[in-house]
């Protein structure tokens, strides 16, 4: 019997060989240490993401998310749904709140769900993995398993948008959330609290459709990290991670910068601090190698 059990909603990007597969790897390792059992929601589906709107209607988005809830309620009763992807968490929670706000919408949703032989009871709650860490464990608990404090590594905590707004984590400020810095300090790293781009938007899905505009955002995010003397950026969001890491080469190409700023996940920091290997921490999944972290992981 694990210490804590959750209905896990990994989301599309965290699947095997998908853009955030290393996120999933590190999350699994981290949870193993914390004795958390994540049971994937059987046959879960995409949340529709924010960007799906033009094709989707309002109801269709809610139905997508309701399906995941319905499955969780049916197969993993009593367990909170936990998402690691910011967008998954946001969209699921947004749908849940809308459906609870409107009997009409709820009825319509269930009418549609019937087609898939499902029914949404509105029982299960959805939470982000970071919420679980902070609220169900707390910084002190998270500190206990640390065997390899990330001493001397400077982290720019890049929170981004969707874990932060509109819902926020643990009631922190939208403009200057501190939880990421606190997590960094929990695992013995140095949090660069003066990093002033922590909630700047990376362009999100528009990194695809409006690359120039998005890369201007990304440039600010990376530059500010350099200004603070960061060794690497750490983030809770797969899309932020992908955008900020992947496009640095593009920006270098287009604007002659020499960016090579690693972008990691909080879960990777924790896995390493908890004594996990580079592989367990998914450190092999980077275009820009988080060398300092890899070295620590390698240390016996």
């Amino acid at each position, binding site marked *: 019997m694990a210490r804590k059990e959750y209905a896990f909603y990994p989301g599309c990007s965290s699947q095997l060989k998908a853009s955030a597969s290393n996120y999933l790897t590190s999350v699994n390792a981290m949870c193993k240490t914390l004795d958390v059992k994540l049971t994937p929601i059987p046959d879960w589906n995409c949340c529709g993401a924010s960007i799906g709107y033009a094709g989707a209607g309002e109801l269709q988005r809610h139905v997508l998310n309701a399906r995941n809830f319905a499955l969780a309620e049916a197969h993993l009763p009593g367990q909170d749904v936990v998402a690691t992807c910011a967008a998954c968490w946001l969209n699921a929670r947004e749908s849940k709140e809308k459906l609870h706000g409107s009997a009409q919408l709820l009825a319509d949703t269930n009418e549609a769900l019937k087609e898939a032989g499902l029914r949404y009871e509105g029982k299960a709650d959805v939470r982000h993995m970071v919420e679980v860490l902070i609220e169900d464990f707390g910084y002190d608990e998270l500190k206990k398993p640390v065997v390899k404090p990330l001493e001397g590594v400077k982290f720019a905590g890049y929170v981004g948008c969707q874990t932060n707004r509109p819902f926020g984590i643990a009631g922190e*400020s*939208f*403009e*200057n959330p501190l939880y990421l810095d606190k997590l960094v300090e929990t695992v013995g790293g140095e949090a660069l609290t003066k990093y*002033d781009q922590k909630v700047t938007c990376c362009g999100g899905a528009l990194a695809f459709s409006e690359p120039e505009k998005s890369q201007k955002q990304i440039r600010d995010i990376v530059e500010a990290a350099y200004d603070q003397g960061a060794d690497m950026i750490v983030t809770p969001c797969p899309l932020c991670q992908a955008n900020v890491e992947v496009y640095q080469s593009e920006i270098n190409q287009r604007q002659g910068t020499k960016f090579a700023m690693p972008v990691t996940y909080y879960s990777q920091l924790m896995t390493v601090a908890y004594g996990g290997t580079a592989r367990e921490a998914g450190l092999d999944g980077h275009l820009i190698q988080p060398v300092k972290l890899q070295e620590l992981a390698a240390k016996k």
Partner: protein
Amino acid sequence: MTKPIATGQTILVVGGGISGMTAALEAAECGRQVVLVEREPALGGRTGRLYRYFPKMCHPTCGLEINLRRLKGNPNVQVLTMAEVVGIEGRRGDYRARIRIRPRYVNERCTACGDCARAVDAEVPNAHNYGLDRVRGVYLPHPMAYPQRYVIDPSLVGSADAGKAKAACRYDAIDLDMREETIELHIGAVVWATGWKPYDATLIHPYGYGRFPNVVTSVEFERLADPAGPTAGRLLRPSDGREAKDIAFIQCAGSRDENHLRHCSRICCMASLKQTRYVREAWGDDAKSTIYYIDLRVIDRFEDFYQSVRKDPAVRFVKSKPARIAQDAATGNPVIHGVDTEGYHRYAATHDLVVLAIGMEPEANGLALPDDVVRDSSGFIEGSADGGQIGAGSSASPLDVNRSVQSATAAALRAIKVIHQTAAAES
């Protein structure tokens, strides 16, 4: 502490700001008995901490002096300071009020000679200046403080400093054994004049108050402009003491905002217009003021004042609720980001100092009021249904000084009416 004499014919006024003093004095000058209760060690309230009033640019302490003289000459008013109402039972015409009185550690023998203050080293934040500077731990709240009697900060009690202060007093006025006490008064009517407090600016995250030293509130700015304030009246910015000549005023800081205060605080527009005058007077043609606003609410003849400021080339008006403030790392200058909605112009404006025209929150929001006292969605006091308890001044509605005094004067009559009708019913 001698317990005041009170009967069912006595009016209890809660709050010793300008509204409370007015309600108390107007009733007393009609020959009624009043007990005036103030939480702070001295009377005066918020207006006592303003430098000047709009639109006359006159000094609040001028009116305070007159009111204090009325008070000193009028035996009908009994004043209790460092006192809070902790409970009121009963009904219109027949209340029992419990009042908790905190120890001042200085008794009525104090001559305000100041020897005790000079004897101590410990310093505490200066409440009169909203903590912008510090004062000796034994202090007179401000030069015009009434009662004109020193106070010992509780943090000193039991310390060597307290002993030094006691030793320095030649009149046996320091009593370190004073204890908190609660008294009960029989009264006939209650006027709630608990006033307002500036909304907690740290909650307005995009503006960075508390993170950026050069973002201050309008009430703090009053202290900066006041010759009796922490900078002796010079407009110097907190981060580096540099002269602040280019100053931004952001309206609706907390007000008209479902995330903060739902109401419009009424006074802020005029306050900022007034404060641009401070800037003008301080720096002449080097002065630069910019007012970021949604609607400029300067009603009735205040319009004259507005028009005169409009004509001042040193003042700019931008119709915009700024989105956020950033801080220039090198200079510490606040940079305001937003969009001028009149025609849509994006700006990133650098200033020396930003003043948040902070909203008025009812002070009563922090207090436990009797159940039968009705309050609106923002917490302003409408009074009790039976009319025995009355809201006055800015505790009843966000009001400027002039309207607060009108309201307090009306409250005085309503209280007297209660007393009169009770007496009539009994006789």
